[in-house]
């Protein structure tokens, strides 16, 4: 039978690692958003050379597994660049998550930008706005609204993906579970507990996501 008492005891232990999990995901999310916006703008405005580079970047990070990318950053790159020898697992994981998810997010942001009615672009240009004013004041605010649900989904994915950091020796929530389980041999209880924690976190975020969407859509209601 399930050792429920053990699970209860494990809960605070695992929860103490939750901040690290959320921290990694949030830092990666912020940087991924910035990179994704830049990639998307480069793609939409077809900046020469950069556009090709962006395409290659997106293709690579979408075309290879996250785990492979993490191993490349943590075990592979230091071989090439000496300064990276001291890279720690958390940094490598955040770097990997950032680049991996920025590639996906760039495509959703690009789609959101392209989806905005062309006449608004023309209207903005016709009153004398520059390309960057058009982007900042008209296009990106609307694209943000369109892309938000998808971006929130990526954030949720990212939180779950931080569990891969344990393969780089990081003791985050998953790594901690692994350690606890191999000490107690209660694998089912331990992994069930950590699954429940991830689940609850994701549910709370989904609730926030729905509230955010309602708020963002206010202006567009008839």
């Amino acid at each position, binding site marked *: 039978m399930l050792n429920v008492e053990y699970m209860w005891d494990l809960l605070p232990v695992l929860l103490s690692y939750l901040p690290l999990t959320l921290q990694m995901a949030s830092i990666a999310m912020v940087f991924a958003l910035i990179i994704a916006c830049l990639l998307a703008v480069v793609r939409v405005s077809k900046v020469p050379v950069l556009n090709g580079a962006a395409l290659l970047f997106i293709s690579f990070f979408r075309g290879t597994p996250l785990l492979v990318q993490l191993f490349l950053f943590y075990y592979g790159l230091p071989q090439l660049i000496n300064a990276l020898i001291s890279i720690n697992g958390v940094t490598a994981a955040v770097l990997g998550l950032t680049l991996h998810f920025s590639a996906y997010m760039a495509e959703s942001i690009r789609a959101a930008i392209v989806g905005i009615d062309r006449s608004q672009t*023309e*209207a903005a240009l016709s009153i004398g706005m520059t390309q960057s004013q058009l982007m900042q004041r008209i296009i990106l605010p609307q694209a943000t609204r369109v892309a938000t649900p998808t971006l929130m989904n990526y954030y949720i994915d990212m939180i779950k993906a931080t569990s891969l950091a344990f393969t780089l020796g990081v003791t985050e929530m998953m790594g901690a579970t692994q350690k606890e389980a191999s000490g107690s041999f209660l694998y089912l209880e331990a992994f069930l507990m950590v699954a429940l924690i991830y689940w609850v976190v994701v549910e709370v975020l989904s609730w926030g996501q729905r509230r955010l969407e309602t708020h963002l859509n206010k202006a*567009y209601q*008839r």
Partner: protein
Amino acid sequence: MITLESVSKRFGQQPVFTDVDLHLEQGEIIVIIGPSGTGKSTLLRCINFLERPEAGHITVGDLRVDARRASRADILALRRRTAFVFQNYGLFANKTALENISEGMIVVDKLPKAQAYARAREILERIGLADKADAYPASLSGGQQQRVGIGRAMAANADVILFDEPTSSLDPQWVEEVLGLMKQLAAEQQTMIVVTHEMQFARDVADRVVFMDEGQIVEQGPPEALFTNPQDERTRRFLRKILAPTGQALP
């Protein structure tokens, strides 16, 4: 005053129009009519470089731009001297009616926000939408949206307002209020070029009607002369076709 000198435009290999000349005095109202697909809208869009003409000179006020070597700064300067009203309104969906009108004054003319809002409120008053200041475009009727579109053009303080089929997307019940507003602007001597299929409007409001066909200005003149006694056969054929169902006198 606005002048186009031998302006040409083509899409790929296909010429839209070649060597078009057009001149307007300040306060003049020109209506361009003609069959669909003859380059009327493209001509209008070339004036502010929404479409880039291949050749010719465009003069608005004291600014003369050579289409062949127009720089980004030239194009920006040209756009700041002109305003455009779109068939599909082109309102900024993330901004209220007030913000749609004040946006250009704040971002382009760098007016202080309070001053821009005050002017935008005056304009809302003039276009009869004072009570809709805080409404977003999605909650406005087609006619109201187009009036905001015109309000935004008014706010630009431009030398000329270019109207590209401003009533063509409207449900019939909203056409009058938009045309009414345009007449009001015309009465205030606002220089404007209007591409439209509203023949009655052309007749009532235009100082000069320009008939375009197949990428050429075929004929132009005061509305009564052009509508009752067109000189070119193509003009006559077009007017007969378009006026017959309206019950107006045929040339």
